[in-house]
């Protein structure tokens, strides 16, 4: 029975080809005739137009003369500057800075989850990453973009990719370092966030950068349907957390996702998506606490499966977001780690793992956030966000006797107001009650500015 679909397919394909061939011949003849017809008709039309213009000029109406005169103006094809700088790429620079007031908690972590290096214990004044972006069409076939982020005295290549323009059939290919299209927020740069920090789930999933960045290839296909249906697949090095760099041939990580979206009436539009990311880690290290409260080092080897569901709803009266609009967004994840964990005492503090112990490491953890942002005048917006995580199942195997990994449900509630002078500048005041660390209730106040200069930014959905 297996051959049957192939026969059907072959027949369909064959009939398709035959139809196309005869159509092509006919079309060629038709277009030749049409060209001849068109050329004559154009000449006649041109003559007729000249005649009618002449008639109009001689008419008594005093304003008709201006009509004809304007009509006969030379066509102003946008005068391109002749200097070499005319081909300079779009350049934009994002300036961000903030003031933070919060508790001093060294070694801040999210309780119940794999401890990642966390840079959020930064109080007082600070300048966030300064983002410098270059983008341009390379030729009719390719477009390139690079985003460099400068913080402190280091420059990091946040993104550097090329993408196709000319394949067609709804296909888009991207190569280089790019923010993965999994989830909703992952692809967005920090300066476009509606709050001054990322949802907790993004910190848990992808570490302090709160975004999964891949060095690799992305394939996207947009279906030719009135409903927005998009599929994507990515392969790459997989060096970003929760994966780790492994110098090997082939692909180190893979992602699949699907997006669906549409309008509801003229005022609302939505997008929903599901994404799956598979990464693997070799000797991924982190600082744990042992059963006696002493620092211990953990090393994970294994695979991580991440599943994300996302939903965004936007509403504006008559679909005109300028004066008022509302945006709701929510994402949910489930993540499974499967491999083994080695507990060590590299600092020699005499913890439970003085002799390294390797045991199973098998977890199933989840979390979500939901947020709503209302713009009530062209300048002012206000928003609320709620984050909750569930440390879920954490099977430590033989290390259950050595490491402390408490069950906990971290949560955080955030409120913000922001003011935009124009499309290019914004200041934000944010207040959060953060209970992401067991036993710590941290009331955080943030005052922030985000400004962009240079090329006009894109209004992503």
């Amino acid at each position, binding site marked *: 029975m297996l051959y049957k679909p192939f026969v059907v397919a072959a027949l*369909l394909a064959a009939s398709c080809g035959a139809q196309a061939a005869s159509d092509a011949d006919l079309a060629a003849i038709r277009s030749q005739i049409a060209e001849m017809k068109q050329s004559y008709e154009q000449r006649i039309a041109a003559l007729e137009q000249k005649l009618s213009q002449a008639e109009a000029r001689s008419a008594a109406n005093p304003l008709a003369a201006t009509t004809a005169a304007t009509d006969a103006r030379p066509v102003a094809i946008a005068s391109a500057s002749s200097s070499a700088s005319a081909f300079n790429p779009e350049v934009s620079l994002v300036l961000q800075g903030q003031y933070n007031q919060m508790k001093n908690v060294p070694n801040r972590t999210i309780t119940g989850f794999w401890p990642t290096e966390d840079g959020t214990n930064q109080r007082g004044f600070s300048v966030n990453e300064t983002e410098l972006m270059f983008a341009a069409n390379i030729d009719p076939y390719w477009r390139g973009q690079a985003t460099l982020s400068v913080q402190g005295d280091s420059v990091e290549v946040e993104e550097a990719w090329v993408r196709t323009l000319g394949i067609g059939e709804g296909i888009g290919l991207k190569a280089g370092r790019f923010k993965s299209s999994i989830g909703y927020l992952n692809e967005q740069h920090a300066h476009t966030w509606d709050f001054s920090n990322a949802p907790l789930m993004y910190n848990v999933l992808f570490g302090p950068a709160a975004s999964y960045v891949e060095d690799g290839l992305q394939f996207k296909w947009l279906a030719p349907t009135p409903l927005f249906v998009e599929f994507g697949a990515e392969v790459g090095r997989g060096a970003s957390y929760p994966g780790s760099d492994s110098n090997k041939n082939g692909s180190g990580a893979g992602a699949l996702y699907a997006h669906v979206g549409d309008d509801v009436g003229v005022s609302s539009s939505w997008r929903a998506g599901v994404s799956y990311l598979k990464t693997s880690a070799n000797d991924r290290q982190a600082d744990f606490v042992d059963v006696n409260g002493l620092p211990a080092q953990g090393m994970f080897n294994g695979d991580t499966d991440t599943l994300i569901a996302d939903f965004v709803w936007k509403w504006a009266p008559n679909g005109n977001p300028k004066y008022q609009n509302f945006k709701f967004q929510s994402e949910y994840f489930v993540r499974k780690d499967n491999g083994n964990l080695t507990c060590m005492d590299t600092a020699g503090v005499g913890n439970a793992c003085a002799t390294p112990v390797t045991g199973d490491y098998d977890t199933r953890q989840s979390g979500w956030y939901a947020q709503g942002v209302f713009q009530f005048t062209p300048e002012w917006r206000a928003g609320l966000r709620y984050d909750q995580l569930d440390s879920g199942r954490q099977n430590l195997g033989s290390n259950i006797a050595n490491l402390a990994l408490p069950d906990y449900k971290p949560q955080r509630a955030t409120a913000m107001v922001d003011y935009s002078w124009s499309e290019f500048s914004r200041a934000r005041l944010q207040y959060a009650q953060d209970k992401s660390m067991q036993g710590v209730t941290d009331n955080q106040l943030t005052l922030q500015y985000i400004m962009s200069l240079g090329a006009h930014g894109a209004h992503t959905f």
Partner: protein
Amino acid sequence: MIRLLLSLLLTLACLPASAALQVFATAPEWAALVREIGGDKVSIYTATTALQDIHRITAKPSLLAQARRAQLVVATGAELEIGWLPLVLRDSGNAGIQSGQPGYFEAARYVNLLDVPVVLDRAQGDVHAAGNPHIQLDPRNLFRIGEALAARLGELDPTNAPAYQAGYKAFTEKWRTAIARWEKEALPLRGVPVLVHHASFVYLENWLGMKETGALEPKPGVEPSSGQLSGLVARQQSAPAKMVLRTAYQSDGPSLWIAGKAGIPAVMLPFTVGGTPEAGDLFGLFDDTVQRLLKGLR
């Protein structure tokens, strides 16, 4: 299941592309112009309505899906749609409608743009480097745009090229007569000083000879402030404007406030096709615009 999907996909691939040329118009005025020229030879999707600020639209999923299927994108250009259209075109995966391809048409390339800034500095607000992009309100611009558009439609759909030429010719004849009528009707508007909400009416004023004495927005794209508004009221003493103009999508608050203080009428103009019930097509747009201006003058 897979077998069903496979045969469904192949059947879809074999379907001859729907007979009409698929056109994606960014604004209602271009949709209306394509309709005049193309008639039933084209199938048109309009990305925005007259009640939306076309500069502030986001790259919605529905726009991507429509751009994917389009054979021709008709845009204003001059950076009007810069916030969303480049993104929609790139992410559509449609090679034929990329900038520089025959399937991408920019109306602003065929007219002489007004208000081209000498100095490019965002301290001047959200200025458009190429000039003021609201070109549709000078009806004379539609001759050149229509001519180029008819040629482009013919290039993409050679079979129907004569029909597009004929459509354009029929349109120009009606249009020429209509312009003569509007210009005659609008003679009392010559030299009339007006205030505007945003620099939306530069081409209309240029055509009818009206004089813009000020804008409610202190800088393009920056919302009217109370200081700016009271300044304009004060100026009414020395340089009195006869009415204050706004588009259908702009908020009525600021112009009604000025109108109340200065004792002049606030006139809402359709700005594009669909902005008022009367502006059902291009002819209705200018009929209604001229009538509303004349009513404001009385």
